[in-house]
């Protein structure tokens, strides 16, 4: 007999209005990967479900198989990550992490490592000791690894030689780092695989390697200058948009928040 009801734990990645007062949720689950489900009546304040299927909530769900989409019949919050909701920047970063997970996941494809990472990252994001910008870079590198796009940071991607502690190059197209010689030949070569190669400072390379190989508990101790942090951020952003072939919408909001503080004062 086919089971009509089943339980999953999930993190709510996205939700859109659906029908009269329902919501269509995009969920990220440990065993079923990304999936969509309907929360009936969730827009009504009288709904007992609505708070339990709010964005970025870790929730325990009881679902009923539907013809096209499964229907949420019960929802209980496991963790609402309240501390992160109190701060606009951190909310902005939560949107960004969720968009990354959403874009890099396919429905029905299990990715337990990514699920665990996302869950822990939402916790870390609510903790004031963690620098959200550094956390986002750590998250990006781990996510890329878990979805099979780990950037090569230790050997030249072209010739395979170990990278010298000097100024090297990074190519999103080629998928990692190139030594200066290979970068030059590859950039000039008409059929080169690294024509987008750009200079990478030694400090930024060290930071990237550190973030790629350490646990967050260690990595979070990094204290970086704004210049290094933006170099790393720009590089990873190029790498990510190269693989997604599109820009991420929530990045724009984070940018606005950074710039926005000054808008208020002049008013």
């Amino acid at each position, binding site marked *: 007999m086919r089971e009509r009801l089943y339980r999953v734990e999930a993190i709510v990645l*996205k939700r859109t*209005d659906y*029908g*009269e*007062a329902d919501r269509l949720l995009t969920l990220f689950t440990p065993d079923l990967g990304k999936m969509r489900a309907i929360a009936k009546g*969730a*827009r*009504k*304040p*009288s*709904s007992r*479900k*609505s*708070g*339990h*299927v*709010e*964005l*970025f909530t870790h929730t325990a769900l009881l679902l009923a198989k539907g013809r096209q989409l499964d229907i949420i019949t019960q929802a209980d919050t496991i963790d609402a990550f309240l501390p992160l*909701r109190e*701060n*606009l920047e951190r*909310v*902005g970063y939560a*949107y*960004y992490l*969720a*968009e990354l997970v*959403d874009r890099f996941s396919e429905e029905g494809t299990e990715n337990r490592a990514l699920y665990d990472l996302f869950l822990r990252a939402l916790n870390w994001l609510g903790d004031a000791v963690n620098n959200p910008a550094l956390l986002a870079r750590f998250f990006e590198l781990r996510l890329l690894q878990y979805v099979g796009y780990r950037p090569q940071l230790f050997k030249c991607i072209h010739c395979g030689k170990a990278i010298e502690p000097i100024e090297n190059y990074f190519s999103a197209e080629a998928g990692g780092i190139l030594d200066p010689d290979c970068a030059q030949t590859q950039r000039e070569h008409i059929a080169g695989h690294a024509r987008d190669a750009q200079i990478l400072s030694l400090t930024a390379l060290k930071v990237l390697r550190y973030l790629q190989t350490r646990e967050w508990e260690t990595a979070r101790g990094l204290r970086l200058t704004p210049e290094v942090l933006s170099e790393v951020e720009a590089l990873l952003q190029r790498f990510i948009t190269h693989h997604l072939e599109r820009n991420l*919408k*929530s990045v*724009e*909001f*984070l940018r*606005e928040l950074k710039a*926005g*503080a000054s*808008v*208020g*004062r002049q*008013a």
Partner: protein
Amino acid sequence: MDTTPRAVTRLIEEFHRLPGVGPKTAQRLTFHLLRAPKEQAAALAEALAQLNDHIVTCSICANIAEENPCAICRDEARDRSIVCVVEEPLDVLAIERTREYRGLYHVLHGAISPVEGIGPEDLRVQELLTRLERDRGIQEIVLATNPNLEGEATAMYLERLIKPLGIKLTRLARGLPVGGDLEYADEVTLTRALEGRREV
């Protein structure tokens, strides 16, 4: 072979494009109009035509109205020192139904939603700031955005912009359950939320 007249399928399609209307409902509405007296369909057609011709956006509060400024903004009996900021015109209706609130409004026409690419510049935020700058009589802003993440993010964003101006800022009390939409709130809940608004 589909023998449904073209005019009928067209109306079904148009109904179907409306939010909250599925294919079944679209069919039901269309066939209801077919069976109803001719005047009913004519009245609907006229009402739809008027929608484009007679609706304006109030230049003060950005609410949709028949005249500019809207009836609320023109009403001398209302308390002009307090402005309630809402996401949608429907939220104005919901709050008006409580008869509890006597101030003015500002309609943002949405909420910040980074996933959908909706940022502050897509909302009537700049209009609000300009209004606050011009109208020095405004002493309190009530942030009445929805009690969900987008609404809270929008409120936090506005708080950041308005705080430095030295205007009193309040947020609807949390009588409203998280995750719901303001327009669905019952009058009792909304009234309590208005009474219990807290300073931010």
